[in-house]
C-alpha cells in the first residue's frame, strides 16, 4: 500500500496534513518512538483507553513511509518500532493462529496502549508538579539564616591507671643515673693508636698484645675490656697500613705483634 493511498483513505484535512508534515520536520524533537506514537494518538481525539492501536500502527507506518519518501533518516529505534508495529498490525488483522506461541496481538496492543497512557499520565503529573508553588519562586525560606555555631567542649579524662603509671614513671626515672658518657672508663682507638705508634718502635721481636695495655687499665675489668678492644683495633689499623705484623698461634691463644721491618 502506498502512502498516497493511505492519506487518501484517511481523507486528511489540510490542517491535519500540515500537522503530519510538521511531525516529520520535527522528528528530531521527538523523544523516541513512544513519544511520536503518543503525539500521533492525539489525532484520534479519543480517550487513550479507547485508542485504536491498529489505527495508530497504520498512522505510524505511514509516518515512517513518508519520512523515507522525503529521504529523512530516522533513528534505528523508530525503524524497530515500525517493524514491530507492522508485525502487530498483521497479528491484529489476521485471525489468531492457535499453534503460534507468545502473546496475542490483543495483549501486545493492550500493553502498548498501557504504555502510552502511562507516559501521558507521567507527563500530566510532571506538568502538575511543575505548576506547584515552588521554593524560591512562590514561597521563600528565611533570608537571613542564623548559622548554628558549633561549640566544641573538650573534657579531659584520666583513669586511676593513668595516674599510677604517671607516678610510676616519675619514680622510675629517678632510679636512673643521669646518662653521661663515662669517658674515664673508655679508651678510644685513636688513643690506643697514638700510644702504640710510639711504643712499637721500641719493641723488638714478637710481643704479646696484652703487654701494650697502659698502666692502670689492667685491673678494672671494664677498663681492661675497653683498652683491650681499643688496642686490638689499633693494631689491625696499623697492620692494614703495613706498620706492623701480627700473629696468633691458635684460636684464643695470645695475639702477638711486632714492628714490620722495612728491609723485610
Amino acid at each position, binding site marked *: 500500500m502506498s502512502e498516497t493511498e493511505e492519506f487518501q483513505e484517511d481523507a486528511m484535512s489540510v490542517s491535519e496534513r500540515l500537522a503530519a508534515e510538521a511531525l516529520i520536520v520535527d522528528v528530531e524533537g521527538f523523544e523516541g*518512538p513512544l*513519544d511520536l506514537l503518543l503525539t500521533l494518538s492525539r489525532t484520534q481525539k479519543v480517550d487513550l483507553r479507547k485508542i485504536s492501536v491498529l489505527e495508530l500502527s497504520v498512522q505510524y507506518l505511514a509516518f515512517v513511509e513518508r519520512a523515507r519518501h522525503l529521504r529523512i533518516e530516522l533513528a534505528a529505534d523508530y525503524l524497530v518500532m515500525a517493524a514491530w508495529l507492522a508485525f502487530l498490525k498483521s497479528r491484529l488483522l489476521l485471525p489468531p493462529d492457535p499453534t503460534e506461541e507468545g502473546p496475542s496481538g490483543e495483549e501486545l496492543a493492550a500493553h502498548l496502549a498501557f504504555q502510552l497512557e502511562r507516559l501521558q499520565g507521567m507527563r500530566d*503529573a510532571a506538568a502538575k508538579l511543575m505548576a506547584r*508553588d515552588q521554593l524560591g519562586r512562590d514561597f521563600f525560606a528565611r533570608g537571613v539564616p542564623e548559622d548554628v555555631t558549633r561549640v566544641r567542649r573538650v573534657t579531659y579524662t584520666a583513669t586511676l591507671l593513668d595516674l599510677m603509671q604517671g607516678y610510676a614513671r616519675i619514680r622510675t626515672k629517678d632510679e636512673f643515673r643521669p646518662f653521661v658518657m663515662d669517658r674515664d672508663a673508655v679508651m678510644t682507638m685513636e688513643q690506643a693508636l697514638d700510644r702504640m705508634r710510639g711504643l712499637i718502635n721500641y719493641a723488638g721481636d714478637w710481643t704479646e698484645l696484652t703487654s701494650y695495655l697502659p698502666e692502670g687499665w689492667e685491673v678494672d675489668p671494664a677498663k681492661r675490656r675497653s683498652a683491650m678492644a681499643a688496642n686490638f683495633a689499633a693494631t689491625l689499623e696499623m697492620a692494614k697500613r703495613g706498620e706492623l705484623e701480627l700473629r696468633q698461634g691458635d684460636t684464643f691463644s695470645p695475639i702477638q705483634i711486632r714492628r714490620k721491618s722495612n728491609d723485610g
Partner: protein
Amino acid sequence: MTDDVIRDTPSEGLNAREESLFEAPPMGEQERMVEAILFASTEAVSVKELEDRMPHGCDAAEALVHLRKRYEGRGVTVVKVGDAWAIRTAPDLGYLMQKETVEQRKLSRAAIETLAIIAYHQPVTRAEIEEIRGVSVSRGTIDQLIEMEWIRFGRRRMTPGRPVTFVVTPGFLDHFGLESARDLPGLKELRSAGLLESRPPPGAMPGPNSDDEDESPEGQSELFED
C-alpha cells in the same frame, strides 16, 4: 485587637503533661524555642534535631502542633517537609518577593519527565525510567537532578544485577511544598488507573535498547502503600 491574647505564651493547660517530664520548660517556652530554631534555619529541621538543641525533656512534636496552629493564615507558615519542619512564606504572597526570587534553572523536558517518573514510581531503576519514557535516559539528566539535590540513590533492587534505584530527596519535597511523596499531585488517580503498577511487557516489545543489566521491574512503589 487580638494581640493581648497572642502575647501571653500558652503555658496554661499543659501542667499535667509537664509534671511527667523531668524539669522540661513550660510548653509555651518550648514553642518559642522551636519558633526560634525554625526561623533561623533555611533548611527543614527534624524533630530529633530540634530536641537535640532544646533543653532536656522537651517535646518538640507537641510544641510544633501549637506553633503550626499559631502561624495558620499568617504571612509565614510552619510546613512539614518529609519528617522535618520549616517556616516558609505563604505562597499567596510570592508576588511580593520578586527581589528574593532566585533564577530557576531551566529543566529540559527529559529532566522534568524523569523527575516526575522518579517521584511517582520511586524507588525506580534507570531501566524502568527508560521503559516508561520509551527512550534511554542520558547520564546528564540523572546527574543534573542529583546535583540539584532533588533525587538520590535509593537501595539497590534485590533482583539480578542488583540495579541501583532512584528516589526523591527531602529537598525535592521542600522545593515543591510537599509534606511527603504521598502528597504528589494526581497520585491517587494515577494509582487507581493502574498507571503506577509495573507491567512487564508481553513477549518482545521494542523498548529503548537499554544495555543495562536491570530488567525486572517489580515491587516498587512500596513508598506509597498506606
